[in-house]
């Protein structure tokens, strides 16, 4: 078979992150290639390079055997590469047909030739068996129909290599099945398909070959019919723990319940059920690791705990007191410290000074106010001591938080949340993402210290190594439900990895959808 597209030794770095590390792969014409990996494994970076949105630092790309330079999406389109983005690039008030031809409309002199437009779109829709109602307004179309329009948009522009970025994330089960049969049809007609996913069951069902990426590198490529989800899960999460375990689990495990969650359900921003009727207890002195691939409900779960998102049903109790109706301030005053995952958006006010950020949860309490104005002497003393204690590297407390590095911003947040030793519960979401080694170690040590002093710590992290290194007990979010991996033991990693990628029952080698 002829080679459709290949990359050779692609390397791409962003400040502080090696996103793609000497990535090579070859994909044949008519192949459905799945690319899997955890969040941050480098899949999306690679796809953006292939679509001309990023330039690689080194390495080259060949399309149909010819080395190409892709410096814009337009270049990629002209080489026959089409991309179906996770967030659709459609204009809501246009019809689906108008969106499909946008930018290359058939026209007679200055006017759009509406008859030819409809005919052409209808023809290509029939040719590839992608059914869309061409005259429907996009805002009235279902998600599946919008996605078909996106695929047609690429095909209309002559794409024969299609990149689909997590195409099933927005689809219902039935729509996913439809998509798969359409993709098989396209492959039969000679289209090459790159399918990015982290859902192993889907990958096993649809792809011919699967490439696994981890930490920017290609771990390996396997024939899908010769593998199973256990092997893929192991390739995705790796075998050995890097950095080792830094937590000594305390001897005496039976302690008070500080946080009790009963039958909690939460909707996401699209009004779909993101957290499905979960029950959970957090004990004092315990670090509970919450693993899971992004988008399985853990973010919504944390936001519901913090009162940032309403709980649809269920009870949340802190020390026996029900707090699900409390405001965020009420919950914080009940003794919850929170390190949010997006530190620039919800962790600090980037345009405010360090001292202002440090005082945001205390400014209304004595001695930092007398009820009328802020007591600057007290505030400055507190800020100075927190900056010192949490080793924020800054010329002074009047520096804007946004001017600090990621690690130092995280230290400011930790200072505010943990510095006053008030917290009974610490919720830390991605506390070390994108932070240098010394910062990472310092923050991890703080969490351990807090647990040792009797607080309950909820640790969410996309970095499985971090969860393994710190947690006393690990649960996994998968598809809005939690699965218990149990107390830490040597080798828990495998179980966690399987739960992350398959949920209930973990992986199952008998489960392979294809045979060779």
């Amino acid at each position, binding site marked *: 078979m002829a080679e459709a597209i290949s990359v050779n030794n692609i390397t791409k770095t962003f400040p502080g992150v090696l996103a793609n590390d000497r990535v090579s792969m070859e994909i044949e014409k008519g192949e459905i290639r799945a690319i899997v990996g955890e969040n941050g494994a480098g899949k999306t970076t690679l796809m953006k390079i292939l679509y001309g949105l990023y330039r690689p630092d080194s390495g080259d790309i060949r399309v149909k055997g010819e080395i190409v330079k892709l410096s814009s999406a337009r270049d990629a389109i002209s080489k026959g590469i089409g991309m179906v983005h996770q967030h*659709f*690039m459609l204009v809501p008030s246009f019809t689906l047909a*108008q969106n499909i031809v*946008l*930018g290359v409309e058939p*026209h007679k002199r200055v006017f759009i030739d509406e008859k030819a437009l409809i005919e052409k779109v209808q023809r290509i829709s029939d040719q590839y068996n992608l059914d869309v109602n061409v005259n429907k307004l996009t805002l009235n179309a279902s998600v599946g129909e919008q996605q078909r329009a996106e695929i047609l948009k690429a095909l209309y522009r002559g794409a024969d290599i299609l990149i689909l970025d997590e195409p099933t994330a927005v689809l219902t089960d039935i729509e996913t099945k439809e998509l798969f049969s359409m993709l098989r049809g396209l492959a039969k007609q000679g289209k090459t398909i790159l399918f990015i996913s982290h859902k192993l069951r889907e990958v096993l069902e649809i792809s011919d070959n699967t490439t696994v990426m981890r930490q920017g590198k290609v771990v390996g490529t396997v024939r899908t019919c010769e593998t199973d989800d256990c092997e893929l899960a192991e390739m995705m999460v790796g075998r050995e723990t890097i950095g080792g375990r830094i937590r000594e689990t305390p001897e005496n495990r039976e302690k008070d319940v500080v946080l009790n969650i009963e039958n909690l359900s939460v*909707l996401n921003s699209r009004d779909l*059920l993101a957290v499905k009727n979960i029950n959970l207890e957090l004990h004092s002195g315990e670090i509970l690791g919450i693993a899971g691939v992004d988008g399985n409900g853990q973010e919504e779960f944390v936001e519901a705990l913090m009162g940032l998102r309403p709980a*649809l049903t269920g009870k949340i109790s802190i020390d026996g007191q029900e707090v699900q109706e409390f405001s965020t301030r009420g919950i914080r005053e009940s003794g919850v410290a929170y390190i949010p995952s997006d530190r620039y958006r919800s962790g600090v006010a980037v345009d405010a000074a360090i001292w202002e950020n440090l005082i945001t949860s205390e400014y209304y309490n004595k001695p930092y106010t007398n009820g009328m104005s802020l007591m600057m002497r007290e505030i400055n003393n507190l800020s100075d001591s927190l900056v010192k204690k949490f080793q924020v590297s800054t010329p002074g407390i009047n520096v804007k938080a946004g001017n600090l590095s990621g690690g130092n911003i995280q230290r400011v947040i930790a200072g505010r949340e943990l510095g006053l030793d008030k917290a009974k519960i610490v919720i830390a979401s991605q506390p070390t993402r994108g932070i240098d080694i010394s910062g990472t170690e310092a923050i991890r040590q703080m969490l351990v210290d807090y647990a040792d002093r009797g607080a309950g710590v909820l640790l969410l992290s996309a970095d499985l190594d971090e969860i393994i290194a710190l947690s006393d007990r690990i649960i996994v979010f998968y598809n809005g439900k939690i699965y218990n991996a149990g107390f830490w033991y040597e080798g828990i990693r495998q179980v966690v990895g399987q739960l992350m990628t398959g949920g209930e029952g973990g992986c199952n080698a008998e489960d392979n959808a294809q045979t060779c």
Partner: protein
Amino acid sequence: MGGIDLSRIFTLSLFATTFRMATPVLFATLGGIFSSQAGIFNVGLEALLNIGAFFAVVGSVNTGSPVGGLLYAVVACVIACLFFSVVHLELKANAIIVGLAMNIFASGMTNYLLVTMLDSTGFYQSDLIIGFKTVEIPFIKDIPVLGDLLSGHFPLVYIAFFSVWLVYLILYKTPFGFHLRSVGENQDAAESVGINPKKMRYLSMILCGVFCGFGGSFLSLSYLTLFSEGMTAGRGWLALAAINFGEAKPVRSLIACLVFGFADALALRLQQFGLPSQVVLMLPYVSTLVVLLGSAIADERKRKALNAKHRSAETALT
């Protein structure tokens, strides 16, 4: 009040006046529709009418022809719009602030230029200003009712109403219009298919300038042939209200313009019947409030319907 005969108020000429009064607002509205469909909320329409009216007079005096005046007005408005675009699109200033600044700047600038170029203060009227002549349409002028309504207007009145159809064609029937609207609605989508959003925004602003130039020249070279300080009298703001009411669609916005024009015409007429002018002159502005209130209530209904849909989805889940 009992002495007023309604049939003497609601005459055909009242409706003919409606078209005349609606014309400058309509021009500014059509201009604003372009920028608003491309995603720029242009609050500088008042300034553009002001600049257009002033330079139409200058052009008419300089060239001795109303068409020359129109040309001057269009060029001046396009330059003003390009200035707006550079500050907003290149220097990333907030469009509303730029528009407000332009409104203040335009009234100061025309007052200043009135002194330096035309040697007058606050007001310039002269035989040197050559205005447009009204047009009698053959045949139609002899038809009883239609003749009184449609014939005998200034050329710019016809151009304005014809332009509604033209703008509709440009926006909804040409690739150019498609690209312009896609930029305003989903910039990422437009960019991903190779449409240059900045270029489309510049073009939309140039078109906005052209239409405002027409609107400005109507003010100073048609019914009145003079320039006076503040002669735009808030028509640029009325145009904004019309765009808002019409959701930047040409035909719907036309309806709002006609309502404003009618209120203006009615105010003129009622003054002749000895009603207190302070009350009567409120009419156009009261009608604006009513129109905006109406569209706000309609929006609110839509929003509530949407929310109800969401709620039913929620309960379906539980």
